[in-house]
């Protein structure tokens, strides 16, 4: 394949300002069980090439699953034609931030190749875990496992030649306690499909799904008969799983520079973090430091190079409360006179790279969990996301959680259901006055981040440890 791609690059060399070619070949396994019965076992293979060209300062992109040289030349010519069309509205020539040439390979380190684990072992784990959960009012249980192996070749007219093989593994279980006119769910280790990592099958074993199944089901049963969350202004502690989504929606998305520059405005929206605020805006309290780090071992947003051939990097986004950085692509970084920090990622061969999250991590603090909770007179401990929504500038957010626990005089108390909390992003992060210690810190994989048109679903992650926020508006869904 690489030889054909090199021929295509030679063909393009004199026709373009810049071009890159991406061959992507992927394997996927997706297994699901419900109520102790295997409901689906799907495998897939997928491959193709995406050709991106910059001609006279305007972009063209074409992609195809037909991989013989003749077909790829046709696709290449299509990309060149499209660039001509783009030029019709050109205001200025598109520039790219400079980048070194890279000749490199990267492979996710795995202990156990998930595709070499027997089908039976995976099936047994899900069937048994979902059977164990069927207790009392838990009438529905679900479990899923997913595995991905993605091989990418990246070649550019600047001489970069990068091969990567990324392994991803993940899964989770959910129990639904169902009553008359109400149902409550509890998920493990996280909601909406569980937890994911760039790891092998060892990650699945470490999750101990079966060992947690009975406890999770019991918590669902307790939630069904629990009262609804109180409403009003409370101090809250967000558990790591919910805090991961809070970081995702209220920091990860608003620091995407393409969004800031208006490229998503008709669809997913813009951002309040406009360029005038860079290095000049208090995003949160001094406790709050958030980094984008595509090098964290096991993070679902971990790789060797992004899909523009820029090495994985660690970048400060918020440093001790100050807004200090964006996630960037080469094109968008150029507009602000910056270098790309390696956050241009494409879902597959048939999509262009967009500015995407990698691992967006809230760095840990120095408190014990007891200390965090102990300093709250009347509050709630909230965890495991149930619903999410945020406005088109990423300011007004509302999240619902599976679990709310009363905090009274520094102690955890009774369980509540249907809790929601609302806030305005910078006010909320400014109210953060404590983050727990590194030993509570964990990277949560989020495999369903959507953005762009045509839509691209990206695999990202967030490192968090439980944190405390003062005077937050809480309520209950009805």
């Amino acid at each position, binding site marked *: 394949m690489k030889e054909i791609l090199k021929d295509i690059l030679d063909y393009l060399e004199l026709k373009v300002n810049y071009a890159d070619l991406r061959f992507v070949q992927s394997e996927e396994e997706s297994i699901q069980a*419900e109520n102790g*019965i*295997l409901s*689906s*076992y*799907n*495998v*897939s*293979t997928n*491959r193709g090439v995406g050709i991106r060209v910059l001609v006279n300062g*305007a*972009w063209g*992109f*074409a*992609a*195809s*699953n037909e991989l013989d040289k003749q077909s790829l030349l046709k696709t290449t010519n*299509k990309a060149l*034609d*499209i660039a001509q*069309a*783009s030029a*019709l*509205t*050109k205001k200025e020539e598109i520039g790219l931030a400079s980048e070194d040439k890279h000749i490199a390979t990267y492979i996710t380190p795995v202990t156990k190749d998930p595709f070499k684990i027997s*089908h*039976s072992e995976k*099936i047994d784990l899900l*069937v048994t875990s979902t059977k164990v959960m069927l207790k009392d009012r838990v*009438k*529905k249980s679900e479990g899923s496992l997913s595995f991905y192996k993605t091989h990418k070749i990246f070649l550019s007219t600047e001489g970069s030649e990068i091969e990567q093989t990324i392994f991803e593994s993940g899964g989770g279980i959910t129990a*639904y306690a*169902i009553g008359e006119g*109400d*149902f409550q769910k509890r998920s493990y280790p996280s909601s909406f499909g569980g937890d994911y990592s760039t790891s092998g099958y060892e990650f699945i074993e470490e999750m101990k799904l079966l060992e947690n199944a009975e406890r999770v089901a019991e918590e669902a049963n307790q939630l069904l008969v629990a009262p609804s969350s109180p409403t009003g202004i409370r101090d809250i502690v967000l558990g790591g799983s919910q805090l991961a989504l809070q970081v995702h929606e209220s920091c990860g998305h608003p620091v995407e520079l393409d969004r800031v*520059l*208006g*490229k*998503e*405005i*008709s*669809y997913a*929206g813009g951002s309040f973090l406009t360029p005038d605020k860079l290095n000049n805006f208090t995003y949160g309290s001094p406790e709050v430091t958030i980094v984008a780090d595509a090098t964290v071992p096991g993070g679902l947003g971990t790789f060797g190079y992004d899909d523009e051939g820029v090495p994985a990097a660690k970048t400060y986004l918020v440093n001790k409360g100050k807004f200090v950085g964006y996630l960037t692509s080469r094109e968008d970084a150029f507009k602000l006179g910056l270098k790309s920090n390696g956050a241009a990622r494409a879902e597959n061969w*048939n999509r*262009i790279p967009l500015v995407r999250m990698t691992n967006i991590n809230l760095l840990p603090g120095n408190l014990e969990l007891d200390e965090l909770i102990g300093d709250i007179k009347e509050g709630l401990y909230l965890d495991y996301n149930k*619903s*999410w*929504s945020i*406005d*088109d*500038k990423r*300011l*007004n957010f*509302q999240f619902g959680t599976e679990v709310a626990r009363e905090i009274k005089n520094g102690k955890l108390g009774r369980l509540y259901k*249907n809790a*929601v909390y609302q806030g305005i992003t910078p006010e909320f992060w400014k109210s953060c006055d404590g983050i727990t210690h590194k030993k509570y810190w964990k990277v949560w994989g989020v495999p369903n981040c959507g953005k762009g*048109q*045509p839509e691209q679903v990206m695999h990202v992650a967030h490192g968090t440890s439980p944190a405390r926020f003062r005077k937050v508006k809480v309520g209950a*869904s*009805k």
Partner: protein
Amino acid sequence: MKDINSGKELVNKVKNILKNYDFEIIALEGKSELTRFAESYIHQNVAETDLNLTVKVVNEDRISAVEMNSIDDHTISENIEKAIEIVKITPKLDYHYRLLTPQLYRIKSKFSEQTANFTPINRAQLVNQLIEEVNRRGYEAAGAFKTEATTLLVANSEGVFAFDRGTKVDFNCVITRDNSTAHASFIDSDINNFNINKITDELLETALKNVEQIDIEPGVYTVILSPEAVAHILSYTGYSAFNGKMIMEGKSFVCHNRSKKIFPETITVSDDPFDKLTMPLPFDLVGYPREKIYLIKNGVIKDGVYDHLTALKYNRKCTGNTLPPEQASFGALPFNLVMKEGDSSFEEMISSTKKGIYISRLHYVNVLNPMSVQLTGMTRDGTFLIEDGKLLRAIKNMRFNTSVVDMLKAVDMISKEQQTKSGFVGPVVAPYLRTNNFTFSSKTKF
């Protein structure tokens, strides 16, 4: 898979490999092109061709599925071997899996040659026309313009053979000048129905009113929803309340309210592939013919939509709403939601409103409580205060936390005009709607 004959060849190829097994196949081949613009220039312009073949292997109530995007002999047989290997060791389902028998199909997707052959230059010229016009008025434009042509084949070893070709145009745009914004969208099968001048006028008309937004306090309001906003709410309602699998599991509002008259007589919502404004699919993803299904009829809750698996498991009738195997665990979604028109004009709805709010567009809607169909989300791109029958002032964006059940109970006016808007599977046909019970829970500063 350029025609029916190549579809038949593909089925035979699979049949020859899977001699001893039952099977279902879905093949989707397409050409999709999209031009995306922002800050009044084209920043993304893409095209793709692809073919996805999914083969589901069935062996005495054991199932596995394999998906591939190459259909050469080697790739097909290598992948099918994997599916056979899996299906041999998977445990049996807890119900009998029957394949569908051959069916007759009463409708076809609409296919427009001009749409299929619309070029990047054609799209760029129309985008440029819009940009130039809104720039003249001091606005910037951002949006996406997609044209696509697809061929869909669904078949099985019992002789089901369903073949269809369709085209789609999907356009959306937001124009902005400081805090003044407006949004417009268009979806259809035929590029000949696309009128860039009409869309430009619509955008500018809203944007020029959407200035100097004022604050209003959260609370319960009378609200007039645009067809865009109604379509958004109906999509989430279809997803959370009318999914047959959730109904059978006791996780839907519908399961305790079937046959109850809950809403005004004027409320009728169906999944209707025959509606003249929709873009129909003739069959679902196992080959069931699509049919008209009432979800709410004259205010009475009827039932949800059912996929093949849920129907088999719970002994229900499949309504022709089966999703592809990778989404099968979700259940079913309505494909062609239609809310029946009323007898009011939009102008009458505004002029008869003493105090209320007009919502052009919703943003980031999500389900808060599926049992009451309580949704949350934001308004954007034009929210207006109505006083004494007039659209008076633009207001800043608001968050709503509102139950669709309560909202529909309080509907007192529905427009005669319906518009076709994007939905989760196919489009949604929706009118303007006035309700006297819509709850805003917080506001923004923009």
